[in-house]
């Protein structure tokens, strides 16, 4: 009975949100592409060259990729241009640690800024040189 009630409530929630009734907004976002888990939790130093290898591991492992802006905001990237394979694609792996400016559609929902990137306007590559201070994080050289 309780399980049926839960399913009804979940269905109602899905219907209420219309499968995606959240308001979207066109935005330009500039920042560093980061591995969301390490960068947000602070379990290790997670920026720039020092953390690039780990960021590649995490993206290849399917951890969401975000753009972190200079004011500390995170934009979780669900699409990059024509590629929406956000959990597996090489596009999401290869762009780790890059400084980018992107145009896209922003959906905010329950504490998360989700970004569907329509165009990478600028990609400077990896420019945050942190390895001379931090080495390779984690595990060192």
């Amino acid at each position, binding site marked *: 009975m309780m399980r049926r009630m839960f399913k009804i409530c979940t269905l109602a*929630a899905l219907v209420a949100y219309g499968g995606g009734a959240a308001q979207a907004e066109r935005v330009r976002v500039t920042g560093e592409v980061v591995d969301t888990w390490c960068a947000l939790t602070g379990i290790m130093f997670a920026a720039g060259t020092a953390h690039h290898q780990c960021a590649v591991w995490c993206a290849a492992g399917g*951890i969401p990729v975000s753009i972190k802006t200079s004011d500390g905001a995170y934009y979780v990237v669900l699409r990059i241009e024509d590629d929406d394979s956000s959990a597996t694609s090489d596009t999401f792996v290869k762009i780790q640690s890059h400084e980018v400016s992107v145009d896209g559609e922003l959906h905010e929902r*329950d504490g998360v800024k989700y970004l569907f990137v329509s165009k990478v306007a600028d990609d400077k590559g*990896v420019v945050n040189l942190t390895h001379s201070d931090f080495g390779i994080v984690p595990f060192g050289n």
Partner: protein
Amino acid sequence: MWKQSVLVCAAVAMAAGAAHAADSWGLANETVTEIEATVVDIACVLNKDCPPNCGDGKRQLGLLTTDGKLRLAAKGQSVFAGAVRELLPHCGKVVFADGLLIQDPALTIFMVQNLRLTKADKLQPATAFDTDWAKQNGKANASDWFRADPRVKKVIEEDGVFGIKGLKPAPTP
């Protein structure tokens, strides 16, 4: 009698609420919790772009709770791996996800440590990523998958550990 009943009910409710096995990581803003939620394709929920089977493992997945909260399932139990492999078999179904809800002011995410399909089931560790990787690449290097993964090796060989071609670590003395 009434007072006794209330106390018994409260104890049962507390026990039910505490019935999780997730480990704290001591992170700021974390809550150890078990949530009952439907497994969803996040892009589908947000923009109605809904391929079959939640994107078949290619897309980020979420947990939609009964009160309409969409939780980004960002991490599983496997080292350096997300939660897509854990949740994909349950696309569109209700699960009980045991783990850490991290409500940072900048971003809210969920780490799935264990899963079960009903409250009566035993919690299963969310390590499907390891199992799947070993099936595809062999068991020998599964615990160090991130170093042995062919795709990772190719990217690191091409761009280097720092992501800049030609930039190499200083030799260790």
